[in-house]
């Protein structure tokens, strides 16, 4: 499978963005569609109306701290193409893989971007470039098997294809 190279407008987020901010607890038992409407409602009200298909989130340390809830799926569903953070909570990263949402850890990325910059993210060589400043950073590699799952839309299509779970 060809590895993705993306370009998108950057939304900047600080460190320790937790899952309860991405997908508030009150929406845990909502439908997938209803969950899209409440993303970041407590810390960034109105953001869901501004974010565009293909935008990229650039964040500081420890993105996704917290719960196992499908917060990564909500970011994917509102149109975010990719997450690049200084570091990503391990459980959140699992959910990125398993819900089919591209994510990378990249030291220095928070300082290298201002909101509104255009980021070019390559999963071929795991580099992140700021097209305004020309700066290119080396991100950590995502193992092939995990990247393939992210690209395939997560793990559910894999289990469907193997006849282990029912089709939606």
């Amino acid at each position, binding site marked *: 499978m060809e590895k993705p190279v993306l370009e998108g407008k950057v939304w900047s987020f600080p*460190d*320790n963005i*937790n899952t*309860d*901010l991405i997908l*508030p*607890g*009150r929406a*845990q*038992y*909502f*439908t*997938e569609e209803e*969950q899209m409407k409440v993303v970041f*409602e*407590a*810390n960034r009200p109105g953001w869901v109306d501004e974010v565009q298909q293909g935008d990229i989130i650039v964040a500081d*340390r*420890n993105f996704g*701290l*917290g*719960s*196992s*809830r*499908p917060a*990564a799926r909500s970011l994917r569903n509102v149109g975010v193409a990719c997450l690049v953070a200084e*570091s*990503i*909570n*391990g*459980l959140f*990263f*699992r*959910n990125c893989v*398993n*819900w089919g949402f591209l994510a990378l*850890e990249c030291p220095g990325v928070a300082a290298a971007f201002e909101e509104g910059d255009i980021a070019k993210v390559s999963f071929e060589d795991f580099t992140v470039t700021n097209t305004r400043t020309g700066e290119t950073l080396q991100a950590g590699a995502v*193992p092939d*098997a*995990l990247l393939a799952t992210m690209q395939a839309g*997560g*793990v*559910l299509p*894999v*289990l*469907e294809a*193997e*006849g*282990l*779970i*029912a089709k*939606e």
Partner: protein
Amino acid sequence: MGMTAIEKILARNSDQEVVKPGDLVVVEVGTAVLYDNNLIPANWRDVLSVKHPERVVMVFDHRVPAKDIMSATAHSVGRRFVEKFGIERFHDVGPTQGISHALIADHGYALPGTVLVCGDSHTCSAGVFNCAARGTGSPDMLYAVTKGETWFKVGETVRYDLTGSLAAPASTKDVLLHIANEYGDHATMNVEFGGPALENLSLNARRTITTMGAELSAEFATFEPDPVMLDYVRERNPGVAFEEQYPDEDANYYGRHTIDLTAIEPLVAMPDAVLNNSKPAREFGGEKIDQAFIGSCANGTLDDLAVAAEVLDGKTVSSDVRLIVTPGSQLIYKQALKAGYIEKIMDAGAVVTNATCGACGGGHLGILSAGETCITASTRNFKGRMGDADSRVFMGSPATVAASAIRGTITDPRDITGEG
């Protein structure tokens, strides 16, 4: 270079001699724990095949008894799954009801040296049993249940050596808040606990630390084995073989810190974050509270109820405060009844609920309105965690929460008990 305890567990279960940070390992899942949040329509798919039904545990905990139609629907899905695949370890509403992590401890489901996954983030709780226990997402659980395996990225390990002994009413909750304050997040890394203080710490006290490992953003939180833990597990698993894993003497740690428990004082985390956000309980200058909560997988143990009863004994909860106490399991609830804890807690004016995650996740049984302030002995204090985004949640130990409920303001428990 040797391996840390978690590296050795992951190596064993992926049939490798050695694993090291940076590796991606595929491991056999020894125990897979499903719970009600996995079963809601937005997260669940009909399962057609289960690899090892005897390795699956089903628990309803977040919203039990069902608090609305959606949770009732999830529970129905779970009952059908249990029936279809003959799952024997099933914790429905009833006498074995409880929070998954409390039940794993009550029943000895986590075997040392094995891998346990559950769809809830506080699964690291079972690391107290020297188990590679990890919270995963719902799709992860479908994968583990149908294929019998899962994957982990091996992270670096930070080792904490615990020395000394706690001066009551300081507790392991205060120890964890201290670590979160001093060392911040541990994203992508494991935490390992050991040292001479273990002999002074009950399994319940240790489990508060591993459960709160999720709040350090750690991957795995693992205790070194000791006879107390091993005897506890053996008692609940007669005739079952397992191999606990000790870290190698020359294990390769990313960092190593000594925590002197003797110096730990009651701490309280301020609203919205556990990391780098606590100060001594005495420094809150009469901060008023509307609600106080003791419960969850972190602080719903029998030890926690004992401490609450001791602080509340003969005292009265402030008329301005609702004190809600939620045991971690119905078994713990019954033990606390027999020990007389529940009567003392209720006589002081608290409401004791059935075992469930309850108010901790803002699911039910104690949701906060805008403008309200709560102090909680539970897992998290994120913005909006226990209700409206404009409520505030402080976090402390059960002793600190009980003391604060009596005064109506955030209070160091030593100001009530006269200890320390």
